[in-house]
Structure formats: structure tokens, C-alpha cells
């Protein structure tokens, strides 16, 4: 068995002392996702405050579980270390290892890309600590690369497809020719697969799937062929900076003013990031996509979170911040309920756990793959934003039942959770 | 060694000559090469600077021209009442100093003509290109050729031509005959006499001491960075002892 600390006569890796427990927040601090990482970090710091009984308590007040009392976790004060994933698998793992080996972190969380999430999740499995994934949307994280020690609260590409499809049908009809531009790496492919499957179910026709290099910058050479195809819908399987650029440029090439097959040409961005969408400016207006959470939601939990976050930092949180905050609370709660920091106990407490009051309605942490099942938001770029954060409006909430799939669904097949690993 | 005793002590002259160097010391990094050299030349005179390999002749010329290395740490250089020691290389050049370096330093990537034009960009302008081509017809024939592909002798002509393209007061020649065929040496000798007749003050470093002394008014011999002889050229030609000791002729 892998042993990171043979000398420690403890039952599991990095067992906390009597007074404090250390969590590792591993977020991108450099590279294209640095702002998203910064927002995640803000959420983590807020979560730590709330766990330690400082501030207004945020979602602790609305959380369905009342195990947490604002006295740390199991009476230990919550401390944290931070690190830079640089949005690279290697760097993220190095950073996570240093949190585990040097700083004694018992749980690692964060990240803004699926590659990083999968890589760090595997590391945590080997090291015997819990990984609470941050923003990761690829099917693989809880599909083919699922691990017993890893948990994902964020939704995934399959869910995006399942949620978007009905809305697309309602707005654009069942007879469309879709053209996919896809970021040429793992996440892009799973999203392309999921979305095309969902739209083909509606009766849409997929005319072309084109892979574009990550960070291409100028996408013009991929957009002009769209003009000459018989497509009437462009689906951008891009995230972050690629999304900003490809969307901006698609609009620049007049796609939105185009009429094709007698229909108005449409663009769809299946996964939105509100933070990044600012970079696309005017161009997002009226464009459909999906998101895990949005600050304008009116439920109690969301409002409580937006309030604490907004008062602390002066602006509303992003979906990345939300998922990270929630993950931290969920972890703490699981430990509290289990009465033990042992990762295996935590796994047991989280598996098939149902909760509410965290902004997404009733949610299930499914034991079979460690994926959360909850409602998915379909959003649209807002036509008349009232301020710089008011970019998206929620047009539909797809109920969890419609986005639920079997653990061995073909898009998620091939994975094996294995057994939980407590280290030592 | 009576010549030694007639050496002027490095003592500041009250009235600087047209061109004078006073107690100049210079270093390459930490190697102390020019170890207190003083020179005095009247306007229009030619001074032959002689000495063995490594004696510091080139270093002295470069110091006077204010080239980047060696670093002059002490001393004064005066040319026509201008304090050259306070100048940078380009200012010294504008004040009328021209150095024809020992390795010629023809500029790569530039044609013969461009090499000459380059010399005329900064004031003051000297001979016209036509006049230079008249003096060295070979350069005229090859004016469009890249300077560094010229033969060794041609490069030497170009280097001298480049100096003449500027209006100069002091010409520093570092081994101008090196690598030249006897005919050309003769040509250049004639040119140097022409230059002397124009009244351009000249310092010439030359291994062919006889040739240099025939041209020169004064002679200075350097050894390990210090002046060991300073007198008229004629006296040196007559002084067998010094010639044998320092020049092997």
C-alpha cells in the first residue's frame, strides 16, 4: 500500500492535532484562469471564516445539515494553505504534494480545469487525503477517471447537454444544422460528445465537428468555413479565454446577422463562465448556455452566500467561488457528521448524502461515482445589463431528474472508484 | 644609457603642445598595460611609435582615441586646446582624431562605399569619395562589394580611406603597412607624405621601423607600457645601441 508517512503511527495521512486542522486550497494563480482562481480563493477564505464562527455564517444558516456549529471542524480551528496550480497538471500535483507533505493538509480542493482536477484527484487518492474538486466540467472527473477519495459538486458536460437541449428546442426548433468548434483536449471532447448527443436526440443534424488548438487566439480560420457550410447553429465548446475569443470573432464575422436555411443563425456556448464572459462584452447578449450557479438566484442559500461574499469583497461571487465554498462546507459537515477526519469515514458520510440550502435546491452526492445531482441552470446573455456583473439571466432551471444518468452511462464508463485510501 | 637620462620626467608641461599626452595610465580589466605615457607633438609633425610585440603601442593609440578598452584611469590628453580625455569615442572623433586600427575593422555587412559613407555621417566631413577613389582606384572598382570580402591589402586601403573621409587633425595609424605588397606600401608611403604636407599631425605605429623613421619627425619607443626613448627620428636612426636593443635593426 502506498505510504506517504511510514513513521506516523496514525491511522490515516495528516491526522490533525487537537487544536487545528489544515485544508489545502489549490487554485490557479497564474495563467488564463488566475482571476477565477482568485475568486475561488475568496470563497475559501469566506468558508473558513464561517466554519470558524466568524462573519455572518453564510450558508451555514441555510444548509439543511445542522451539524456544523461555527466552532471549526470537530472543535479544531480551520487553517489553510494556498498554492498555485498554474492550470497545469504537473504544477498542480506538485503544489498539492507540498500541501500534503509539508503543510499537513488533510483535504485538497480547488482548480479550474478538468485536466488538473483529474490529476490532483488521482494524487489525493494515492496520498490518502480527500479531494473536493473545484470547477471541473468534463465527464471524466466522475466518469472514467473517478476516484474513491474524490468528490465533485460541479455539474458536468452531460448535464449541460441534457439541460440545454429542451431550451434549444423551444427556442430554435427541432430542425437545425449544428457546427461544433471544440477545444482540442479532453474537456472539449467530452462536451462535444455530450452536446451533440443531446441535440441529435432533438433531431438536430451535426454538420461538422472541428477541433481547435487550445489558446489559438485568433479563430478566424476556423470560423470562415462555417460561413461556407450549411450550418445554421454554431456550438462553441470552448471555455475561458478561448470562449471569449471565438465568440467575439464569430460575432465579428457576422454570424449572428446571418440567415441560413431560412433561419436566423444562432450561437450556443454550452458552458458559461460569468467571469470570463465579461471579456466578450456585448457579444454574449442573447446567447444560450448553462451554468452551475448564478448569483441572481433568489433562494435562501444563494442569497445568504451572495450577501456574505458581496459584503466582504464588494461584488458578487462567481459559480467557481460558489462551488468551492459549498465543497468546503460539505467536507467539514461530513467530518462533523462522521465524527472522524479519517478519509474513509468522510467518504462514507458523503456517499449518497442528500442535502439542501446550498443554492442548487435538493442535491444528492451519489455514492456510485461521487457526483452531485441537482438542478441545472440554463442561462442567456442579458440584453440590458444593469451593472458589470449582470451579464447572464437565468431562463430555465432544468430539474435534477432530467439530467440524471446511470453511473455506467457510456459517456462515463470505464471508471472505477476503487476503495477509499486513508494513507498510512 | 645616456638616452635614458635625457628622458623627460612625467611632469606636466606648462604650455601643451598641439597634441600632448600627459602621464596616461590605462587598464584592461585588471591588467595594467599603459603605465604612465607622455607624448608631445607639434602641429603637422609625424611621430613614430615603436616597440616590440605587446609593448603597448596599440593600447596607447586606443587610449588616445578614447576607445572603450583599455580604460584610461589617469592622465590627460590635449589636442588643439581641447581636453580629449574628457570625451567619449565619438566626441574624440568629432574633435578630429581618427584611428586606423591594426585589424582594420571593416564593417561587416556594409559595402565599400557604405563603409566610406558611414565615416561622413558625423561632422566634420573630409575628402570626397571621388578623391579617395582617385587615391585608391582599387576601392573605386570594388565600391559595391562587401567590405569584409576585400583582400587584406584592399581592406587596409579602405581603412585609411575611411579616416581621410573625415576632416581630421590627428591621424593614428596602427601598422598601416602590414600585409601590403611593396608597391602598395610605396603608394601608402606617398599618401602619408601627402597627408603630412596637408599638415595633419600623425602618430604611426609600425614594425617596419626603418620605413616609419624615414617618414617621421620624432620617434618614441615603448617597452612594457612606458616610454623608454623619446627623441627625433634622425637621432634614433643614428643610435645603434637603442636600435639594436629595442628594434633589432
Amino acid at each position: 500500500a502506498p505510504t506517504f508517512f511510514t513513521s506516523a503511527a496514525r491511522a490515516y495521512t495528516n491526522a490533525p492535532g487537537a487544536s487545528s486542522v489544515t485544508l489545502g486550497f489549490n487554485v490557479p494563480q497564474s495563467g488564463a484562469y488566475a482571476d477565477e482562481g482568485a475568486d475561488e480563493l475568496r470563497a475559501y477564505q469566506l468558508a473558513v471564516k464561517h466554519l470558524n464562527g466568524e462573519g455572518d455564517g453564510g450558508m451555514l444558516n441555510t444548509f439543511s445539515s445542522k451539524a456544523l456549529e461555527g466552532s471549526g471542524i470537530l472543535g479544531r480551528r480551520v487553517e489553510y494553505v494556498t498554492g498555485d496550480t498554474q492550470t497545469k497538471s504537473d504544477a498542480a500535483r506538485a503544489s498539492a504534494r507540498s500541501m500534503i507533505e509539508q503543510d499537513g493538509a488533510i483535504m485538497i480542493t480547488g482548480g479550474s480545469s478538468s485536466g488538473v482536477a483529474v490529476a490532483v484527484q488521482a494524487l489525493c487518492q494515492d496520498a490518502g487525503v480527500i479531494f473536493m474538486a473545484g470547477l471541473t466540467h468534463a465527464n471524466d472527473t466522475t466518469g472514467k477517471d473517478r476516484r474513491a477519495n474524490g468528490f465533485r459538486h460541479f455539474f458536468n458536460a452531460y448535464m449541460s447537454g441534457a439541460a440545454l437541449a429542451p431550451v434549444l428546442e423551444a427556442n430554435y426548433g427541432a430542425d437545425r444544422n449544428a457546427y461544433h468548434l471544440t477545444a482540442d483536449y479532453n474537456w472539449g471532447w467530452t462536451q462535444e460528445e455530450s452536446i451533440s448527443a443531446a441535440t441529435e436526440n432533438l433531431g438536430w443534424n451535426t454538420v461538422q465537428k472541428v477541433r481547435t488548438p487550445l489558446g489559438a487566439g485568433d479563430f478566424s480560420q476556423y470560423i470562415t468555413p462555417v460561413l461556407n457550410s450549411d450550418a445554421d447553429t454554431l456550438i462553441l465548446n470552448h471555455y475561458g479565454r478561448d470562449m471569449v475569443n471565438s465568440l467575439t470573432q464569430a460575432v465579428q464575422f457576422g454570424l449572428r446577422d446571418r440567415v441560413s436555411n431560412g433561419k436566423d443563425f444562432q450561437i450556443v456556448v454550452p458552458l458559461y463562465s460569468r467571469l470570463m464572459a465579461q471579456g466578450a462584452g456585448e457579444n454574449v447578449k442573447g446567447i444560450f448556455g448553462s451554468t452551475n450557479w448564478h448569483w441572481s438566484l433568489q433562494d435562501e442559500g444563494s442569497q445568504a452566500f451572495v450577501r456574505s461574499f458581496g459584503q466582504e469583497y464588494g461584488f458578487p461571487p462567481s459559480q467557481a467561488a460558489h462551488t468551492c465554498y459549498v465543497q468546503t462546507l460539505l467536507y467539514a459537515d461530513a467530518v462533523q457528521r462522521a465524527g472522524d477526519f479519517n478519509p474513509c469515514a468522510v467518504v462514507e458520510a458523503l456517499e449518497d448524502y442528500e442535502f439542501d440550502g446550498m443554492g442548487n435546491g435538493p442535491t444528492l452526492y451519489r455514492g456510485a461515482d461521487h457526483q452531485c445531482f441537482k438542478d441545472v441552470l440554463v442561462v442567456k446573455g442579458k440584453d440590458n445589463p444593469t451593472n458589470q456583473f449582470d451579464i447572464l439571466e437565468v431562463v430555465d432551471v432544468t430539474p435534477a431528474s432530467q439530467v440524471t444518468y446511470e453511473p455506467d452511462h457510456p459517456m462515463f464508463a470505464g471508471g472505477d472508484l476503487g476503495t477509499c485510501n486513508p494513507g498510512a | 644609457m645616456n638616452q635614458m637620462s635625457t628622458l623627460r620626467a612625467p611632469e606636466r608641461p606648462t604650455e601643451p603642445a598641439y597634441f600632448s599626452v600627459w602621464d596616461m595610465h590605462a587598464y584592461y580589466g585588471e591588467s595594467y598595460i599603459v603605465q604612465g605615457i607622455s607624448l608631445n607633438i607639434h602641429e603637422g609633425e609625424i611621430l613614430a611609435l615603436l616597440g616590440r610585440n605587446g609593448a603597448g603601442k596599440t593600447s596607447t593609440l586606443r587610449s588616445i582615441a578614447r576607445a572603450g578598452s583599455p580604460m584610461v584611469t589617469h592622465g590627460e590628453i590635449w589636442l588643439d586646446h581641447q581636453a580629449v580625455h574628457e570625451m567619449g569615442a565619438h566626441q574624440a572623433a568629432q574633435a578630429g582624431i581618427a584611428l586606423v586600427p591594426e585589424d582594420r575593422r571593416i564593417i561587416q555587412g556594409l559595402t565599400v562605399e557604405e563603409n566610406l559613407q558611414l565615416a561622413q555621417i558625423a561632422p566634420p566631413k573630409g575628402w570626397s569619395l571621388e578623391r579617395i577613389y582617385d587615391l585608391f582606384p582599387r576601392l573605386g572598382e570594388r565600391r559595391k562589394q562587401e567590405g569584409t570580402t576585400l583582400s587584406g591589402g584592399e581592406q587596409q586601403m579602405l581603412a585609411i580611406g575611411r579616416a581621410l573621409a573625415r576632416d581630421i587633425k590627428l591621424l593614428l595609424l596602427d601598422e598601416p603597412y602590414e600585409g601590403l605588397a611593396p608597391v602598395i606600401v610605396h603608394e601608402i608611403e606617398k599618401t602619408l607624405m601627402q597627408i603630412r604636407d596637408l599638415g595633419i599631425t600623425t602618430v604611426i605605429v609600425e614594425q617596419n621601423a626603418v620605413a616609419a623613421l624615414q617618414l617621421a619627425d620624432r620617434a618614441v619607443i615603448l617597452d612594457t607600457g612606458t616610454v623608454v626613448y623619446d627623441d627625433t627620428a634622425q637621432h634614433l636612426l643614428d643610435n645603434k645601441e637603442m636600435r639594436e636593443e629595442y628594434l633589432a635593426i
Partner: protein
Amino acid sequence: MGILEVQNVNKRFGGLQALDNVNLNVEENTVHAIIGPNGAGKSTLLNCFVGRLTPDTGTVMFNGQSLIGRKPHEINQMGVSRVFQTPEIFTDLTILENVMIPAFAHRDGAFKLSPFAAVKAETAIRDHAEEMLRDVGLVDKRNMVASAMSRGDKRRLEMAMCLAQDPKLLLLDEPTAGMARADTNNTIDLLKSIAEARPITFVVIEHDMHVVFSLADRISVLAQGHVIVEDDPQFIKGNPKVREAYLGEAHGE
């Protein structure tokens, strides 16, 4: 049959006929001087011998083997060394290392992978290199970095480097240019003693007539890419063609 035979070599640079049907025959164990005005094509000819340039037409045979189309290092390995007109040395290395490199090349050939040998253990090579430095009078400066040498010293170093290879044919492009008269005389003596001590052939380009006439067994005069005269030294001086093209009227040495 000479050691170096050059037949009908032509070389053009654009519009310039740098070498115009050059024929040359260098006898073994002699000193063959090439003189001629600047730009006559002397260095170009030498470049054709060592593989720096390829003649447009013509043949160059060394010891019965053609040199045309061979790489510089191959030609050198055949026993041809060259001293350049502007010194080519390893400026960042010490003087001793500069001489040891050709000694290694001579012993080990064009390439030898010996990552675990130690230079300092190569006493034979070092002794040989030091001997060469002693010959040219640089042995006291052997640990100095070569870039800090004066020009005359660099020439001497390059000569030592070539000698360390024990070449059959040594090409010297103005070996004494820039040397003090005393050292020029030493160089003449050195070359003479080398020529006596071992079987070696010299091709010397030189403008210093004192050197040429002290050393040469035979002289070729090149002008405008063309060999105008080839003869023994005593006949060269008086040759009117040579006087006109090269020596000039006033030459009085």
C-alpha cells in the same frame, strides 16, 4: 611529381575572376612562396586547398589524392595545416589548451568520444604542446587566456598550433605580418629549423621580401588571379614583370 599539384583552377566571385587558370606544383620538402599584389588571389588559392572554397573548375591533388569536395577536417587529417591571415585561435581557452587541441586532433583523428579520459592525465600531449610553445617563445605565458594576447603573439600561437599537428604541408598566410623585426627573424629561424628537422613542405604567402628571400626555395608570383612567373628566388628579383606588378620601382631591399 610534387606533393601539391594544382591544375587549371578557376574561381569567380560574381563578376570577379579571382583565380584565373592557376597552375602550381609544389615539390615535397621545399618552401614554396607565393607572392603578388594585394587582391591577386593568394588567400583565395589557399582557401581552395583547405576546403574553405571549392574551385569552379580545376583539380587540386595532394600526395596523389584530390582535395576538391573534401571537408576541411578531412583535408587537415590528410596532413595539411594552415595559418590564417587574421589569427584564428580559441580565444576563451588558455594558450596551452589552444595547442593541446590540435595535438589531440592529430593523435585521435577527426572524432573520438572519450568522456572519461582526463586532460590532465595526457602528459605526452601536454609535453608536446609545451615544446611547441617553447619553439615559438610562448611557453611562459601558457596559462594565460588567449584573448588577452597581443596580435603578434596570436600569430605565434597559431603557428604553434599548426606545428603541433606535425603536418606534411603547412600553409602560411603572412606568418610574420605585424611581428617585430626581431621576432620576424626568430620566425625565419624557426621555420628553417623545422624544415631541417623533419619532412615538411611549406607554402608561404608573404609580403615581407626579407622573409621570402630568406626562406623560399621556389617562388610563384600571382597577379590578378594568374600565375605570371614561377621561378627560383634569384631570378625573381630581376624579373621585370614582377617588378612592375609587385615590387615597384623603389624597392630596395
